[in-house]
Every structure is written in C-alpha cells, then in structure tokens.
C-alpha cells in the first residue's frame, strides 16, 4: 500500500492548541486533536497536540501550516523584545502630538535629520553622523532595530542607508518602514515597524520550537505561517515580518468557518481563551479594512481581516470593583483550575479565605501571582525584586504576598507587562468547568473559587454563573451589532448615549422600557467557532433573532482554515506626475525598490506594471508559493492633463508542499 499524503494544520490559540490532518484529495478532516496551549513556550503545547494526533507510519505530511495568536497577544499584553527606534526626518510637533516618545514600546528613541517630501525629494540630507552615533549607543541595549523615515514609502534611500549602518555593527535584525508597508501615514508606519521589531524574538522562539517538535516526530515538510489577511507565508518570511501574522487566528477561523459550513455570507464568531473575534464573512472571504488593522491601542498599516476583537474569552479575568460590580475581561488570567493543577496548595488558601469570611474587605476575594519567566536584564525596583524572590517557590495570593512583604499596595504592573509574572484568578472557564468535557485541571479549585466569589457578592453559585454568562452574551451581541454598523457606515454605535443605551438594553431583553420594544435582527446566520461557544453563542443568536451554526469540527475550525489557505502577496507601485520648475513634467515611479523617473505617463505605467509583477511574483515565491497567478489592477486619478496611477499586483498560488490542484 502506498503512502497517504496529509496536510497538517496547527492553530495555537490563547488557550488551546488544535491540530488537524486534512486529506488533500477530498478536503476531509481525517484526524483532529486538541491540547492545552502552553503560553510560556507554545511549542510544548504544539508537541502535545501532535502526540494526540494519530499520525500513522504510512502517513506522509507534505505541508505544515500554523497560526498563532502569539503576535496579537504579545502586542495587546505588551510583551516583546527590546527595540531601538531611529526616526528620520519626522516633525517634532507630530511626534509630540501623537505622544510617540511615551507611547511607543521602545527601549530608546532617536530622531535624526533627513526625510523626503511628497515627491520623494530630499527635504534634509541624512545626518549620517547622528545615525552612526545612535546606532553605537543603541546597539548594546536592544534586541532589534526599527527604522522609519518621513515619506520613506516614496523614497526609501535614507532608511536603507541607516539599515546599512546598523548591519555593519553586527547581526541584530533591522526592519524599515518601506519594507513593511507602501501606505502613506508616518504615524501608522512607525507603530507598525516598532511592533514588528518587538515581535522578532517572540516569533523566532516560536518557530524554532515548532521546528524542533516536528523534527522530534520525524516530520520533514515545509513550514508555513498564516498572516492576518488569511494568506500563508514561508517560515523564513514570517521570521522577518511577524507583525503581518497578527490577527491570523481570527482570519483562520473565518476561512475555516467558510470551508466547514460551505456558507459564503455569515458573521463568524470565534471564541478563544483570551479574546472573542467577530468577522464579517462576505462571499467566502473575511472583510479586510484597507486602512489597516487596529491591534490593541495601535492603528497599524497591516492589511488584515477586519475583525472586532473583544477581550473576552474562557480565560478572561473575572473581577469585582469596590462597588461590587462584576466585570469580565479584558485582561486574561490563568484560570484557578489550571493553576491548581500544578499547585494544589492554592485550594487550601481559597478555602481558608472562604471560611474567614470576606466580609467587608474592600479588595477582590482572591487572586494569585505566578512567576512564569526568568527576568532578563530588566531594571527592577527593590520591591519588584522582593516580589520575584518571594514567588520563587510557587504562586502566592496577593493577600499573603502583602503580609509577607508588609505592604498593602503591591504594584506588579511592570512585572506583568514584561511577562515575568502572570495573574491567576477566577475565569469563565472555572465557572463553566463542569459543562466542558475533558479539559482536565483541578476542579476543586474552580469550585472553591466560584463559591468564594458568589459569597462575596451575596449570591448563589448558580446566579454567579448566570450573571457571568449574561454579561458576556450581552457584550458579544452588542459588539456584533456595532461592528456591522461600523463596516457599513464608519460610525460607531458605542459608546452610546444614555437614551440609546436604554434602547440597546431593551433589545437585549432587559425590559427597561414599558411602552417600546426594540429588536436587533441580524439578517445572516452566525457561525460559531471555538471551544466554549456552546455556552454563549446560541444565546447571542437568540438575542439577534438569527440562527447559530456550529459546524462539524468547529472546535478545530481555525486549524482547518490554516490548512486550506493559499499564498498571496500584493504590492502597490505608485506613478505620480512631477512638475519641475519651468513646467517640465516627469513621471515618478515609487516602489519598494526605490524611486525611478520616466518622461511619459505611458512609459512610467509600463515600467510600474513590470516592477509590480516582478516584486509580487518574487514575494510570492519567497513566501513559499508554487505556480503563482498574477492579477494586475490599476487605479487612475486624472489630474487635468496629468494623472496619478496606482498599480497593484497580486500573486497568488498554492504553497509548495501542497501536492494537489486546489
């Protein structure tokens, strides 16, 4: 008997890591497995999922593709490498106005003279000396460099010169603005390039780990990574442009939902441990926002499936404020049942807190801190060092930490932001534990935590459960509505003014109005993807008067999407007129490879098309495609006798390892 060829798809989400084997002949899911994600080192969870996946000796894996929420989570949770930023020719007022110096997550920030204008002409010559000095000072302090020049997408020469200076110092990675995007907007661009640089070590570690796990299991196949726009790229490419992998998990779920449900139009809701992502599926593809993805608090220029990502999932932190109002998310926490699995002693502490009676205590019943990562050469305060020392031999509750350190206000913001500590608290998964099958863990901890929280609020455990589910369902329903409203009108429903809030509440069946009835009616179905969806999405669909479809294999929908995606690379080349002094007109061609000049529009467009095709084709092959098809699009703006033309080339094809015609 011959070998059976299979495609392996892996999705490492915030909570679970899923793996599937798909038969390329008929597109059926032949095996699937689910393991816990191991956030401190995703490759361990990936290895565990691979072990659960029965891969027979006669099975030949021809392609491995993965998607992870790693990039997105790292940005949202503010983790990552140390970045040195060099800005070229940015206007000081704009830096101040956008608070770049304080907001950008960089270790150091240098502004040097240089930059171009709207035609790609030099405004100020590049201050080479300042660049050399900046690089010299930054080099020992950072893991990676980000370089962004004003109007660099119209002329990359200054960015390239600075990149060369950095490369002469050694092998630390450098990424420039023009390499990441060809869109104007220096503010978006610098955010994107900084986030990319910050992600380099994070993605590198992941891919090394995955390769290692594959090798251990004798899987020798090309490794591909899913991007946020739903296309695949080769491992090597992903190591340089990790920011493009943001929102890839949700893109995978949209593609997977389409593949599994065979529905072209729907709202796809993917609920994971950390976030719930809402995508608007139109004609089989997730809707992409041309102005770039928003990740955390950042408007970037990354082209990605436009998803509304809510900080709400199975592992959301459930907290109570001083007025004893319950909130779920947006921060993530290690669920108690999960912490209790490795450290059963926490049960005793939760029990003790319950018996002591939380009474009038103004702080939140119980949360634990866990040391999850070694500290690198970060500057820490004395108190921070004390906290770390105290957590050396296992997690401790905030209460006992306060006692031990003899202080009442422990500030662990820095330690949590840098990923050294993580918080563990009651989460929706703890509360729903008994509904979820085979998730393992320490049920006693989940139960004790729920009981403590219910007691603190003066309600029953059942009521607590209803309230938590209700809060989450209301949020998801409103966000679905808000997203669809925004896609069509660019207007947000939220935050709503008080009278509108009443109407929304009424639509959510909270009956606060007597004489008015309001209904939100969604005119397409909801496809629900992800592990805990069963407890929430049918209720959401009910509120929106539509159907909820949970397709077969929905619990591994992302992994399916990853496996069936294609390689696709798009580039834009801009042609614009340039009126020189005495009315002489030239045409400028701006591409990632630099600025060129032609005498006539026709010649310029011809050259631009050739460049676009060449760059897109090369990018697609570099990204791991085979047999690409090229699509050329042209957008022309007539300016009197002149014209501006944008050429867009998209090269699309199946990945190399895929041995069948799609």
């Amino acid at each position: 008997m011959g070998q059976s060829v299979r495609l392996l798809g892996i999705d490492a989400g915030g909570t679970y890591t899923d793996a599937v084997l798909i038969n390329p002949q008929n597109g059926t899911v032949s095996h699937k497995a689910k393991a816990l994600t191991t956030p401190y080192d995703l490759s361990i969870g990936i290895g565990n999922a691979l072990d659960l996946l029965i891969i027979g000796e006669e099975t030949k894996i021809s392609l491995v593709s993965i998607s992870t929420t790693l990039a997105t989570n790292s940005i949202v949770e503010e983790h990552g490498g140390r970045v040195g930023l060099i800005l070229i020719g940015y206007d000081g007022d704009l830096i101040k106005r956008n608070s770049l110096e304080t907001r950008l997550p960089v270790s150091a920030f240098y502004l040097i003279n240089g930059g171009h204008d709207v035609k790609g002409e030099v405004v100020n010559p590049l201050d080479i000396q300042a660049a050399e000095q900046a690089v010299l000072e930054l080099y020992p302090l950072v893991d990676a460099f980000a370089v962004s020049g004003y109007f660099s997408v119209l002329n990359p020469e200054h960015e390239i010169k600075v990149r060369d200076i950095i490369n002469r110092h050694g092998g630390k990675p450098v990424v420039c603005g023009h390499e990441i995007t060809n869109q104007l907007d220096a503010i978006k661009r610098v955010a994107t390039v900084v986030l990319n640089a910050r992600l380099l070590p994070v993605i590198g570690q992941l891919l090394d780990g995955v390769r290692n796990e594959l090798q251990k299991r004798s899987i020798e196949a090309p490794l591909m990574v899913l991007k946020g726009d739903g296309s695949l790229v080769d491992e090597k490419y992903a190591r340089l442009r990790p920011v493009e992998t943001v929102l890839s998990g949700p893109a995978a779920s949209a593609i997977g939902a389409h593949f599994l449900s065979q529905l072209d139009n729907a709202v796809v809701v993917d609920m994971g441990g950390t976030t719930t992502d809402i995508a608007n599926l139109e004609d089989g593809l997730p809707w992409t926002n041309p102005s770039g993805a928003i990740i955390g608090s950042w408007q970037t220029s990354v082209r990605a499936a436009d998803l509304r990502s809510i900080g709400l999932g199975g592992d959301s932190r459930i907290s109570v404020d001083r007025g004893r109002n319950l909130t779920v998310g947006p921060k993530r926490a290690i669920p108690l049942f999960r912490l209790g699995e490795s450290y059963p002693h926490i049960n005793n502490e939760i029990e003790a807190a319950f018996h002591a009676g939380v009474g009038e205590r103004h702080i939140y019943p119980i949360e634990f801190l866990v040391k999850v990562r070694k500290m690198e050469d970060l500057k820490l305060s004395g108190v921070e060092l004390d906290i770390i020392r105290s957590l050396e031999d296992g997690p401790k509750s905030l209460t006992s930490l306060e006692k031990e350190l003899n202080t009442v206000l422990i500030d662990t913001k820095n330690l949590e932001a840098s990923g050294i500590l993580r918080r563990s608290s009651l989460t929706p998964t703890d509360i729903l534990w008994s509904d979820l099958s085979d998730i393992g863990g320490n049920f006693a901890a989940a139960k004790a935590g729920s009981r403590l929280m219910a007691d603190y609020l003066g309600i029953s455990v059942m009521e607590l459960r209803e309230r938590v589910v209700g809060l989450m369902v209301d949020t998801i329903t409103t966000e679905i509505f808000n997203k669809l409203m925004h896609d069509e009108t660019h207007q947000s429903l939220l935050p709503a003014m008080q009278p509108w809030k009443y109407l929304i509440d009424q639509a959510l069946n909270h009956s606060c109005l007597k004489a008015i009835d309001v209904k939100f009616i969604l005119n397409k179905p909801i496809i629900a993807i992800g592990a805990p969806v069963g407890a929430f999405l049918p209720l959401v669909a009910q509120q929106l008067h539509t159907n909820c479809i949970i397709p077969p294999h929905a619990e591994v929908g992302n992994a399916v999407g990853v496996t069936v995606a294609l390689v696709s690379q798009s580039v834009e080349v801009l042609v614009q007129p340039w009126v020189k002094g005495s009315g002489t007109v030239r045409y400028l061609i701006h591409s990632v490879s630099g600025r060129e000049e032609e005498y006539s529009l026709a010649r310029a467009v011809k050259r631009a098309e050739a460049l676009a095709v060449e760059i897109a084709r090369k990018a697609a092959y570099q990204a791991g495609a085979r047999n690409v098809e090229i699509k050329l699009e042209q957008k022309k703006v007539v300016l009197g006798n002149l014209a501006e033309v944008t050429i867009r080339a998209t090269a699309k094809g199946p990945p190399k390892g895929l041995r069948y015609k799609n």
Partner: protein
Amino acid sequence: MSSTEVLMQLVINGDTEGIVGGVQAALEDGLEAKIVLHALVEAMDRVGEEWRVGNMFIPEVLLSAKAMQNGMALIRPQLTSSEASMRGKVVIGTVQGDLHDIGKSLVGMMIEGAGFEVIDLGVDVSATKFVEAVKTLQPDLIALSTLLTTTLSYMLDTINSLKEAGLRSEVKVIIGGAPVTQEFADAIGADGYAPDGASAVLKVRELIG
C-alpha cells in the same frame, strides 16, 4: 427699522464705511455683541441667497463681505472665543503654482459670512504649508482652490501630505475651482466639492456645521 435691521441693510448694501458707524451706534445703544454677530451672519446668508438666484453680482457680494468683516472687527474683542470661532474653523488657500486670488477670497468671505472663522493662507500655498496650518491652527476643515488644470496635482499632493502626517482623519478637505469636479474630488479622496461660493457654504455646513 430696528437696529439689527439697519445693520443687515448696511451689509446687504455693501456699505463698508457706514457699517462701522452702524455697529458702533448699536453697541452704544446696549445691543449685545452676540446679537450684532447674528445680524451680520443673517445678512450674509441673504446676500448668498441673492447671489445664487442672480439678483446680486460678485463685486457686490465682495463689498457685502468686506462690510461684514469691518463690522466683525469691531465686535470681535467682545465675543468669547467660542462665539468668535462660531460654527467652526476653516483654513482656505489656493494651491501651489496658482496665483488666482479672487474666487478663493470670495468663497472664504462667504464661508466667514455664514458664521465660520476663516483663515486665508493666500495663494501659491504648498502642501507643506497646508500641513503646517492644520497642525498649528487645528481647523475643522480646509478648503483648497485652483483655477488651473496644471495645478490639480497639488491638491492630491496636499491630501497625500496630510495622510503622511497622520492628520488626514482630523480635518475635512473640500476642493473647488473651474477644473474641479465631484468625480475628481472622489478620486483624490476629498470630503467634498463645491462648484460655487454658495454651495461651498452649504458643503461646509454639511461637513462641520
């Protein structure tokens, strides 16, 4: 005639000197600056309407606008800053390479007459200057004018420069001038287009009013 009607008539008649005495007298009579402002604005609305239907001609409109400005100069010190910036702040200018002043100034005056604060950057205004103005003056809207087909590309340059500065979403952009069409406005990503002064006022009101 009430004193506000007198003021309105002075503006409509384009009496650039008479208005000074008129406003002074009105203020001495104890009329609030805010009331005077409303009278001036209402008069200009009527001028705009008369011009649109063909009862007034451009030189007359310009005189009315000048009268309005003279009146404004007297009451401005007594207005609070929010009253002075009125309905919103507009920056206007003729783009780089074009020295045509009259049409742009007329539109500027009419927008001002409708109760907006208008800052006129003049003619031959480069993309960089427009960006600088948006940054420092923080207008709600900028209005770009050109009368030449050869300088249309500078309108696009200005919009692209605003994009690069990350300011495009903070300000509305309208364009006008003989060679400009709605199609062109859409193509370069402007928020609006107006074929004449009166419609420019309506467009400004629609976008930021």
